[in-house]
């Protein structure tokens, strides 16, 4: 087994362990939340009698550890159970939501990542120029505005003032890919604005950090032009931090977009999770939570591996 394979395996094993701990903690968290599913669904109209019946039907009268172990044994066999609240299979429930979330994340990422990296490279290339400063201030302003506010601004401009894009990102109305891209343009743009700034700053910083290396001076003393120094000599050595920040932002695009989903009424996983937590629907919380944690862990492992592959020192390890 190569070192790389070993590393991937050990990271994955660790990731699965982390997932397990996350699931246990989430379960405990839901247990600790005041009220349970029956209480949440029946709300003010709950009487002790209906609560009891409801709990019995859902199995909430079982002791917590029994419920957790039941759930866990199901998961190990690939069965994520049923939503306590609606009785539907969790996998069905997640299906379209997952697709929606991934679609929006991919949409935003496909635009944001190249743009951010390019801007970062240009800012590093023309360090301390007007462009650099403008990009820097622009990026800072973009990350300093609450994302729901960015979203409202975009809606005001593009939906209400110009009437170019819809305010509700309704994928169900989309007939084809082009249409889907059109109706989700505003949420994607909001996300793009939020993540670009972070990735751009990191790219710039990483490149500038590398530019201080002796081999950059060497390259310049070989008569290599500045743009080539940045692209050919600095970029390959700055990939690791850039990949890491991209992974972090991709994770954010998948995991952290609740607010954007709310503003655009976009039926993604984030809202599902918030809803499920609010209604104490434990199997759904677990499934979505595990998916999120898994995404995070997987992206991190992927970033690690890509960092290694980008670095010959680690790739051809001794």
């Amino acid at each position, binding site marked *: 087994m190569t070192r790389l394979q070993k590393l991937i395996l050990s990271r994955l094993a660790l990731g699965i362990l982390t997932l397990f701990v996350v699931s246990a903690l989430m379960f405990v968290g839901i247990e600790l939340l005041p009220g349970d599913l029956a209480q949440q669904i029946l709300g003010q109209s709950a*009487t002790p009698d*209906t609560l009891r019946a409801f709990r019995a039907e859902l199995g909430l009268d079982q002791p917590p550890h029994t419920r957790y172990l039941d759930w866990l044994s199901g998961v190990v066999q690939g069965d994520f159970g049923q*939503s306590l609240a609606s009785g539907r299979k969790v996998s069905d429930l997640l299906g379209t939501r997952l697709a929606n979330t991934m679609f929006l994340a991919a949409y935003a990422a496909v635009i944001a990542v190249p743009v951010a990296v390019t801007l970062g490279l240009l800012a590093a290339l023309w360090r301390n120029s007007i462009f650099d400063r403008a990009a820097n201030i622009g990026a800072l302003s973009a990350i300093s505005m609450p994302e729901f506010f960015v979203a409202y601004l975009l809606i005001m401009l593009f939906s209400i003032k110009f009437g170019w894009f819809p*305010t*509700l990102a*309704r994928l*169900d109305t989309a007939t084809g890919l082009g249409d889907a891209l059109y109706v989700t343009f505003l949420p994607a743009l909001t996300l793009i604005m939020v993540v670009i700034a972070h990735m751009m700053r990191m790219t710039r910083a990483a490149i500038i950090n590398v530019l201080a290396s002796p081999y950059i001076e060497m390259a310049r003393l070989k008569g290599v032009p500045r743009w080539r120094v940045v692209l050919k000599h600095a970029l390959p050595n700055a990939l690791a931090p850039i990949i890491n920040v991209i992974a972090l932002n991709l994770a954010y695009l998948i995991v952290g977009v609740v607010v954007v989903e709310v503003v655009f*009424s976009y*039926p993604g996983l984030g809202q599902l999770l918030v809803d499920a937590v609010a209604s104490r629907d434990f199997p759904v919380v677990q499934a979505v939570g595990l998916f999120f944690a898994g995404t995070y862990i997987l992206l991190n492992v992927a970033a690690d591996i890509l960092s290694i592959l980008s670095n010959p020192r680690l790739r051809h390890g001794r």
Partner: protein
Amino acid sequence: MKRFTGFTSPSRRGFLAGTAAAGMTLGLGLTPARAAEPQKGGTLRVGFTQGSTSDSLDPATYSNDFMFATSYAVFSTLVEIAPDGSAKPDLAESYEATPDAATWTFRLRDDATFSDGKTVTANDVVASVRHHMGDQSKSGVKPLLAQITDIKADGDKVVVFTLQSGNADFPFIFNDYHLTIRQDQGDGTIDPDTRIGTGGYVIEAFEPGVRIELARRDDYWKEGAAHFDKVLILKVGDAAARMNALMTGEVDLIDRPDLKTIHMLERNRDLRIHTQNGTLHYTMPMHVTTAPFDDVNVRLALKHAIDREAIVQKVLKGYGTVGNDHPIASSMPFYNADLEQHAYDPDKAKHYLGKAGLDSLEVTLHTADAAFNGAVDASVLFSEAAKAAGISVNVAREPDDGYWSNVWLQKPFCTSYWGGRPTPDLMFSAGYAADADWNATKWQNERFNELLLDARAELDESLRAEMYGEMQMLCQTDGGALIPAFGQYVSAMNTRVAMPEKVSEMWDLDSQRFIERWWFA
């Protein structure tokens, strides 16, 4: 109106489609558009605040507007509340009671069919009602059905209910959205997830917490109902998103517009604000068994130390009316209009304090916005106003989560709300009767409880009016509930949406029956 006059100046005209002139629409909700005749056609797109991924079609689980409206559109009830507040037969052709009002016979319509073509039978009704009864039931309507001792199908079209004791308001129960009718599966049970209903619409697509798409049934048995060809309800939880969608024309109708910016919406001539009264009211129940609330004078002092007008204006932004410390809305039958209105009067409050032998009073009011939107603000306003009467009301904020289990019914003084009931009997039995599960004030007024039983079994309307009038008085003067305000329902729609002259005022949007009652002008 608001600043930024530039917004409506000629140079900025057209900033919003159709905003052009700044002319204000007339008084709120007083002039809904009405087409002389309802017309068929069009797709109604609705943006709803509520709706959850945990929603299911099981009638026992309905808990939000999204499902209420869906329930009424896809399924039918035996009885519907008419715009005038009366109980009008729906799936039932007629109903009648024995003189003691303890046995009720419902005759079903012959022409009512399910969307799969089957006609509605008495067995379907029995199974549908039984779904909410019994030990295993988790239905919210279960307590109301506890009075039923027996249900019988008498042939195909007659159902007979036997009650523990007389109840003149019994038919009103069958307006409840839980009690929509499904098919008997042959074994006396219903399939809770069935999509086959007796309503004017069938479900084309349903994504809980996201949207539902409905299409009109061509073979709908009810005359003059279900005008829209299609209906789409979207869950749009964010108020701003709802209003944006309405403004850009992505939806035709939204509920609960943001009251802060509603004045801006009004400027748009293509849009209309609709308000209607309802039975929704806000309460501050005191445990009459706990000191100092066990002294009626203390209760009266508090009832006079709250500034109801301020709460209506500031918390409800004017979309409400002052309450008079009893839960009966002016739109409900047997409303007692002769009662003197409790008003903010610090001197009177002091007077009552004196009668209780106190100079000053300190109480703690437990509250959270989970009780109702603005409950904390209302509590703070109460606290400010009560200072003038020498009463200090400490506002204790409680967590939203678990509010109904940890605070309501538990703390001696808290904030709460009631969505209301169609009749005084249902309202009083639910929250004020000595033995009610939700007797939030632990009030045990003998005369009141006696009247409640008598009035329930009484079929003479004028006698009942007298009795319910006295009960409202008892509630107001002796009861433990401080009821500062009744809320109004506000919705916004584009001007194509038309509705009848008079709408049912129990719940929002024609008591959530707008889908089959409204139309496009």
